[in-house]
């Protein structure tokens, strides 16, 4: 295994034993970025090489002084471009935040820096995290490392592609309706959406506040468990972060499923899920049974309405969250305007891309007087029902097993002209955000060389069980050493 392919836990061991230096690790990743970034396009902003190496040297110096090393000390990491970081511009892949340098850091970023992680840069995404392919970005194209003619998924497509391509060891993304899990599935890596309230949202530029969570990407389950542990925990700066104790997630990684009852909700395998995904999930279920799990089919009858409810609630919150972007206090301001209203309108009109504008309009409409009860109110009722159904199902099952996405990665421009088609690619992930539950996606097979994602959904604040399931499956299925054959872009 090349050094740039090492998982974080392997790097940690190598650093502690003196087998490698942090500088060597950083150089390996920087070289890898140099080789493949022009093909993949995972990053929006990379830090200067000398700054990255200086951070790595500081870790080596600390080791020489005999200081102890945290799990991500000296590990090259990437963050999504919607997490405030003083070291980088934070733009949410939007023109409206062009040149915005936050004066403060997101709590998750602070925690990683507190471990002396080596920050490489921030990654491409759909503008304001609104999208499922990373095509809605003002910052350029990110390509799927498994097939450069296909999308990496989204909205955290840059983070997923960076980890898959070896351009970062681990990365943070954010998941509002599947934006960590779906790109993880498309790029063949592990991605986890924590329970709502597990990771602080402070400094994460809000898309839909009641749904957003920061989540980890890694090339194996252990790295994801470790990264979750590094960023999780109560934050007094986020009133929705829960003061729940953070367990040792790594300790939960047991390579069997004995004694675990799992449910397979049939609604997640309904029409629209491709035959190859269905077949891969069926095979995965067989393997879980071999590993000692008891698996039953179950039903969550309101889940088919989840996508509709989500596309009312998320845009409603977004329409309010994005009101602050008007080019007055930060970001890009339209030039040559003569009054406030014109400046405001033009700054927003020029700054936001079409998908963001569409969702602002959808959300504004859904909250309008006379429509509120019909749309927002009704969607909240659906959300309540979905929460209740998940709670009931999870009182009988330790976790639920579903596909992460209804298909493998699709081609560029395939769904850009049909927003409803694009929205449907979140059908398996959105219900979990509405319920606020944790879920993890990991590779469970390939179709024509493209990864398929398996999703485990757990009880609130029980990431341990889904991590254990993912780990047991990963060890048994032994797919994790398959690496994408990045080839030069065609034409």
């Amino acid at each position, binding site marked *: 295994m090349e050094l740039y392919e090492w998982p974080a836990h392997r790097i940690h061991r190598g650093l502690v034993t003196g087998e490698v230096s942090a500088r060597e690790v950083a150089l390996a990743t920087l070289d890898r970025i140099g080789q493949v970034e022009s093909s993949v396009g995972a990053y929006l902003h990379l830090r200067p090489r000398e700054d990255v190496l200086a951070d790595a040297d500081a870790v080596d110096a600390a080791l020489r002084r005999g200081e102890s090393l945290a799990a991500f000390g000296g590990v090259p990491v990437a963050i999504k471009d919607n997490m405030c970081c003083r070291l980088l511009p934070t733009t949410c892949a939007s023109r409206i935040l062009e040149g*915005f340098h936050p*004066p403060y850091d997101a709590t998750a970023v602070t925690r990683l820096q507190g471990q002396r992680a080596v920050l490489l840069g921030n990654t491409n995404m759909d503008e304001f995290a609104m999208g499922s392919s990373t095509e809605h970005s003002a910052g350029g194209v990110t390509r799927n490392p498994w097939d450069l003619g296909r999308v990496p998924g989204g909205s955290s497509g840059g983070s997923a592609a960076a980890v898959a391509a070896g351009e970062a060891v681990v990365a943070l993304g954010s998941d509002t309706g599947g934006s960590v899990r779906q790109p993880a599935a498309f790029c063949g890596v592990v991605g986890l959406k924590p329970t709502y309230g597990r990771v602080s949202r402070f400094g994460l530029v809000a898309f839909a506040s009641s749904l957003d969570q920061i989540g980890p990407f890694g090339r194996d389950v252990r790295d994801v468990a470790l990264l979750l542990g590094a960023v999780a925990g109560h934050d007094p700066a986020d009133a929705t972060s829960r003061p729940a104790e953070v367990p040792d997630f790594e300790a939960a990684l047991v390579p069997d499923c004995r004694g675990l009852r799992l449910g397979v909700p049939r609604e997640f395998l309904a029409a629209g899920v491709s035959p190859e995904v269905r077949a891969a999930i069926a095979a995965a279920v067989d393997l879980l049974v071999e590993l000692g799990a008891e698996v039953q089919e179950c039903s969550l009858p309101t889940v088919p309405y989840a996508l509709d409810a989500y596309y009312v609630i998320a845009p409603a919150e977004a329409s309010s969250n994005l*009101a602050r972007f008007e080019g007055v*206090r930060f970001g890009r301001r339209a030039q040559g305007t003569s009054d406030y209203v014109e400046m405001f309108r033009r700054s927003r009109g020029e700054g936001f891309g079409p998908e963001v504008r569409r969702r602002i309009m959808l959300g504004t409409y859904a909250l309008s007087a006379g429509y509120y009860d019909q749309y927002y109110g009704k969607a909240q009722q659906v959300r309540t029902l979905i929460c209740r159904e998940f709670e009931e199902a999870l009182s009988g099952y330790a976790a639920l097993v579903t596909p992460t996405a209804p298909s493998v990665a699709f081609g560029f421009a395939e769904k850009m002209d049909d927003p409803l088609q694009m929205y449907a690619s979140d059908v398996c992930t959105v219900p979990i955000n509405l319920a606020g539950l944790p879920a993890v996606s990991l590779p469970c097979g390939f179709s024509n060389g493209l990864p398929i994602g398996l999703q485990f959904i757990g009880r609130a604040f029980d990431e341990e069980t889904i991590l254990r399931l993912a780990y047991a499956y990963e060890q048994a299925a032994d797919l994790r050493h398959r690496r994408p054959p990045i080839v030069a872009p065609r034409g």
Partner: protein
Amino acid sequence: MSVGTVEQRYETVVGLEVHVELATRSKMFCSCPTDFGAPPNTQVCPVCLGLPGALPVPNARAIEYALRAALALGCEIDRECRWDRKNYHYPDLPKGYQITQYARPLARHGTLRYAGGDGERSVRIRRLHMEEDTGKSTHEGMPGGTTGVDLNRAGVPLIEIVSEPDIRGPEDARLYLQSLRTVLLYTRVSDVKMEEGSLRCDANVSLRPVGTQAYGALVEVKNMNSFRSVQRALEYEVHRQAAALDAGERIVRETRHWDEKRGVTFPSRSKEEAHDYRYFPEPDLGPCALTEAYVEQVRASLPEAPGARQARYERLGLPAHDAGVLVADPALALYFDRMLAGGAAPREGASLLTVELLGRLNALGVTVGESGCRVQPEQLAALQELVASGVISGKIAKDVLDEMVAGGADPQAVVARRGLQQISDDGAIVDAVRSAIAVNPQSVADFRAGKKQALGFLVGQVMKATKGKANPAKVNEILARELG
């Protein structure tokens, strides 16, 4: 022609919406200071600037203050009250929404009782909720045509207190507002100064023919910056609406601005009324979750309410007016309570405080409870006792008080140092009386001829000779005996 006065023909129905800035040290959702008058945009942080990714965290002290106000107004508390977003665009509103409480306010169903023009008044409080203040837009001192935005005030905690339409006229509105101010002063949650904007009031006014129940079309009046302007604006509005109704016109439901200089209200631009605030639950904040024990603890910590205090002072023998003067100012009332604890007689003590001490402090531009006031309530009580026990006369007491106000000295020390003890020794007074009789034969003759006022002149001469220290009662008694 219409018969009778406006008041005889129409009943005025008023509801007041009052915003009160809470006197917390930090803002509602961040730790920025709230000091008034700092240079623009110096008391700001990512949260109150509405920077991307910043999140609100409720200020527990602000919630406590709002709760104190709600309990002082006898409200029912919603211990699971919620936060909502009120969405609108304005340059001084950094997030594009205000965090407020809409569907589940902190408190409802309160009552404010106060002395009205013709007897006890009772106005129901519909709701009391918490919210954050906006920044300020300013054109002053800005280069031509530009607008400056100062966000120091953005995020300062406010409560909004909405009355039911129980207020029955312009004067009643002023009395309600003044009484509300007093109640809030006692809770110590705000300095409630209308001039500085820590108390702001909008009024909803309508008229209906006397004897009818249906409400007339509602007019909202804004921009009233003093208690007096509330009354004046409403008086103007009542007469404007009455004249329109008399002329057979319909009252338009609208928002009007009060112009203090011209003494009129005028319609605001209708654009402001076309708002659809798109309220929805604030997803960044959970419910408040106040425990019953906490609410009761705050309730128990409230000071005696103004109404109860008034009644107590009257029971102590104070005339209603004097008691009212003390109660209207919590600092004065607390000072007076400390005087009572220090042994002062209620009536005499109240007079010494409100007439003598306040008169002297006014001249210095300070009031009780401020560091400029160097007389402690216990010292003032001691001064009153010196008069009551006959050690000094009331007249000497004023001189002693002058020195106490100037130097903060104890009254006993001043009296002792300057030898101001009253002369009650008969021998000394007899000498002075005899000497006065000897040098004023005409006055003696006048007195004997039946002119009673001549006695006063002789008393004055004795007081003069004793530098005011002779006990006046003794002087009268001995003078009568010597002349008799």
